[in-house]
């Protein structure tokens, strides 16, 4: 597998306000890489700069040092003006909140990126419809976000990113706010969809079980300032069943090792 995305010595601290102590490093000398088609999960303590890391990769926040290399090209990181959010639709981002547009129906929300990119065709519409069916939203297309449950909004926001097929998808604890049942279902949906297209996914979570169950490889981050504390290749065979992945013999072993590294 070739490296698609590489993060080298990335550092971040927020601007210091006048008359205050210099603000602490959130991320310091963080390096890792992601291969094409890999499902990478990142676990770390809450408030450990995981969202900040994804924001920098997504090009919506600047870095204080280091570089991000995407498809062998260096991404602009130094000042707000030169940032290119999403790097010309190459990087999709499923954020913690669903960020659905309240004035658009479920289907219109899913179609939004296609419309914005001028790619609304018979074919892409059909793709949107099949994604809607795949996550069980059929029949809800004309409902507005406030008429959907939390799980359905999450699904809508997930397929809104999948629909335009970016090579890399970042996910920031997308299932954090859901109940266990819905969560397991969405994880399965995600794996099924991933299996069809084998996108590169960088999935951030604080839930170790989720991190192991989904991933090809899991990175563990330290407390602030964030660094890589450990790396674990997950050998549990695919396809995996979310409900009994925890009973796999390898699972317990990996879980213990990761648990020891997460402070």
């Amino acid at each position, binding site marked *: 597998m070739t490296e698609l995305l590489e993060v080298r010595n990335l550092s971040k601290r927020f601007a210091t306000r006048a008359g205050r102590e210099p603000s602490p490093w959130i991320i310091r000398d963080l390096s890792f890489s992601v291969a094409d088609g890999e499902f990478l999960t990142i676990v770390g303590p809450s408030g450990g700069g995981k969202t900040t890391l994804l924001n920098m990769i997504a090009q919506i926040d600047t870095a204080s040092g280091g570089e991000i290399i995407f498809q062998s090209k260096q991404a602009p990181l130094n000042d707000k003006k030169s940032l290119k959010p999403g790097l010309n639709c190459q990087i999709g981002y499923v954020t913690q909140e669903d960020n659905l547009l309240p004035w658009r129906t479920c289907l219109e929300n899913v179609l939004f990126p296609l419309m914005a990119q001028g790619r609304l065709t018979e074919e892409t519409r059909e793709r949107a419809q099949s994604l809607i069916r795949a996550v069980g939203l059929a029949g*809800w297309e004309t409902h507005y976000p406030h008429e959907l449950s939390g799980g359905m909004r999450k699904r809508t926001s997930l397929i809104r990113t999948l629909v335009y097929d970016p090579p890399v998808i970042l996910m920031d604890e997308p299932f954090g706010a859901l109940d266990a049942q819905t969560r397991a279902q969405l994880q399965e949906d995600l794996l099924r969809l991933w299996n069809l297209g084998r996108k590169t996914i960088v999935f951030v979570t604080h839930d170790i079980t989720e991190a192991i169950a989904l991933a090809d490889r899991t990175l563990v981050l330290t407390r602030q300032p964030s660094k890589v504390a450990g790396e674990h290749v997950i050998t549990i065979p695919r396809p995996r069943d979310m409900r009994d992945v925890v009973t796999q013999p390898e699972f317990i072993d990996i879980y213990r090792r990761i648990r020891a590294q997460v402070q």
Partner: protein
Amino acid sequence: MTTLTPPAQADGAAAMTRGGLLAILARKRDQLVVLVVLIAIWQGLSMLLGNYWTGTPWGTFERLAEGIAEGELLRHASYTVAEAIIGFLVGGIPAAVLPFLLRRLPMVTAIIDPVMVGGYGAPKLALAPLFILWFGIGIESKIALIVFTVFFVVYFSTLGGIRALDPKLVQMAQMAGASESTIARHIIFPGAVPHIFAGLRIAMPYSIGGAVVAELISANRGLGYMIQLRSMNFDTTGVFVALAAVCFVVFIANWTVNSLEHRLLRWRPPADVTAQKE
């Protein structure tokens, strides 16, 4: 995975309409009760104090019917309404557009802010004599006063709407490859519409009130002129007739804004908690 079944839409809608209709009828009934009570108080006062001070409900109604039949009321009312509509549009449209133009120019917004705040706070009534001096006693001075009133109300509510927008929605759109113009059209504008409407809803009665006040000061036509003339003749009932006409115009205008808003903002969740309880 389990399939999620959408609610049977047709049934749901029908049930809601039936329930909603009952609720609306109940509300109409209660509104009627309030009206009857007010008229009863009015009647009581007129019996207590004599017709001279308050007129009587029935006498007012008779004069109202007379005024409508003669066409006099309609002639004056249409003059006032024309002033209000022109002023409302001339003041409201630029006020709703300007904040969008200024969105990318925070410096300019900050520079003109004191002027805007001043204009918003200036007592409009005190400006009426100036406008009459500048624009004469015709329709122009009334329109100028209304424009001045409406503009600042709508400007600040639109500006507030643009500022209240969740920046995460804009970020999402940028990530999805939306251009600046797509963001303006599909994110910023729809997000600000509820706030624009809030401004228009406040500005609408102001524009009618502004027209009447301007006519009170100096005019030879309009409902305000009617009030002025009749009060000088100690025609209390006549004043009440004109006031009833003003109330009716405000009522119609409010209804228009409401139905337009309802049509454009179908996507909003029912925000009125008391309405849901009915």
